[in-house]
């Protein structure tokens, strides 16, 4: 029993060390550190324009960008554009993820399905997705449908690859534990396979969501009267650089928020993971 007591003491020492890393003070510090660079750059630029070192026409100072954002927000326009763009990403991402999860699961579960679909999908993946735009416009028109499908195509591939890779890399040894306890196939899937692939799947969802935000811009470039992509095009045509920057800023914030949401939703299922520690 002495051995066990030593173990426990050792263990407690480890836990104390681990807790230290999670301390709120450290987290606060890291948050502040993350803001240092952008804030310093913004202040520097603002000062450079104010003191007449550079002209603010092509690169407007942060104050003007913020003012534009404020105007857009106050008129309700920003909300409208953000809502439209977010809805497109949501619809396209949902479609892409559903298809990718299904196809990825099939390809992972069956060698036959894998041999059938994987070479084709890998070939299609090599096509830059923007190249589909002309075709999609001809097929699905210039309205919502073609945009959502483009976004779906963009988010499909990372999720498909993640799903397939995760299934194929499930450790045979872990599956054997399920076999030793005589799990039925559905139980094996639920109790072993799903939890085992979840971490890699979440990573692929994040990659897919990033692609979704990338492709919504391309989709909105191909003709839209609403959305953040429209703000970009409109800003370019009218020379409103502050509007372009405002839209870019909005993209950055939205992308970060949605990624954070995804991580937050997945986190409770992944607390067991050694590596998955968004907090530390």
């Amino acid at each position, binding site marked *: 029993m002495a051995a*066990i007591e030593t*173990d426990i003491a050792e263990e407690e020492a480890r836990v104390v060390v681990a807790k230290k890393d999670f301390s709120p003070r450290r987290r606060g510090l890291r948050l502040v550190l993350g803001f240092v660079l952008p804030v310093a750059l913004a202040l520097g630029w603002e000062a450079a324009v104010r003191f007449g070192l550079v002209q603010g026409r092509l690169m407007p100072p942060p104050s003007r960008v913020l003012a534009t954002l404020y105007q857009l927000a106050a008129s309700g326009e920003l909300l409208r554009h953000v809502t439209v763009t977010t809805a497109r990403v949501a619809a396209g991402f949902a479609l892409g993820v559903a298809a990718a999860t299904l196809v990825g699961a099939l390809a992972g579960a069956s060698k036959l399905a894998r041999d059938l679909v994987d070479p084709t999908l890998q070939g299609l993946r090599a096509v830059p997705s923007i190249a589909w735009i002309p075709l999609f416009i001809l097929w699905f028109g210039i309205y919502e449908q073609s945009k959502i499908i483009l976004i779906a195509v963009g988010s499909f591939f990372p999720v498909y690859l993640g799903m397939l890779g995760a299934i194929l890399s499930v450790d045979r040894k872990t599956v*054997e534990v399920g076999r*030793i306890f*005589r799990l039925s196939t559905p139980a094996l899937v639920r*109790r072993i396979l799903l939890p085992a692939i979840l971490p890699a799947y979440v990573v692929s969802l994040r990659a897919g969501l990033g692609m979704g935000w990338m492709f919504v811009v391309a989709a909105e470039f191909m003709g839209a009267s609403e959305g953040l992509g429209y703000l970009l095009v409109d800003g370019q045509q009218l020379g409103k650089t502050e509007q372009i920057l405002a839209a870019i800023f909005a993209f950055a914030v939205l992308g970060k928020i949605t990624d954070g949401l995804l991580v937050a939703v997945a986190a409770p299922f992944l607390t*067991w993971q050694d590596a998955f520690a968004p907090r530390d």
Partner: protein
Amino acid sequence: MLAIESVDKTYPNGTEALALANLRVKEGEIVAVVGGSGCGKSTLLRLAAGLDRTSRGRIRLDGETIAAPHAAVGLVFQEPRLLPWLTVAQNIGFGLSDLPREEREKRVFEVLEHVGLAGYAARWPRELSGGQAQRVAIGRALAPRPKVLLLDEPFSSLDAFTRASLQEHLLDLWEAFRPTLVLVTHDVEEAAFLADRVLVMRPRPGRFVAEIELGLARPRDRYGPAVEAAKRKILRALDLSLREGEELAPAAAI
């Protein structure tokens, strides 16, 4: 009673992994199977656990042929193989999902006590040391109260100190639950300290070449003359079987 009845295992590529004579393991007996790497001792355990099928012959538990994993046969792997997404308690209860919740919790608690990890129920496997993790793995295998517990070099990756303490621990568990133990090991001291009977295996194809009935009472003194003598006996059998390749004593006839 666990009976191995002229079991052969030949892999699809033609490699003959096992060609075993008959062997019977009595209820509650502790049998250690020793031999160098590649002698087929792990293959033997996988067959007995029902993870692989025999090519010829059969393994029976109380008359019933084992062709697939069996509720009465537990297996502890060389590495703990805990499920990292389950807590220690959930890992131990993994094989108890057929039981009603209360009964399951009672069993899990009881096993936790037995393996000395009562305060660790809510821990994640990643928070455990190697020895603790292997104790959980043994607990998980014992929780459904198997009649036979198979152990595949369960302590081989642990340091000598932890290994000794886990051997003692295994004996405590054996006292408490009295399962038949079949322990595959390459550690001669482990075999001499734990087993009632030691079987020596030789490779190509894997077969029993010596059987040593230790006949030692428990508790045993790990450093005492009796265990030392047993160790020497096992080593000599291993050594002879390696050098001369002759069969010393055919494994127990039925």
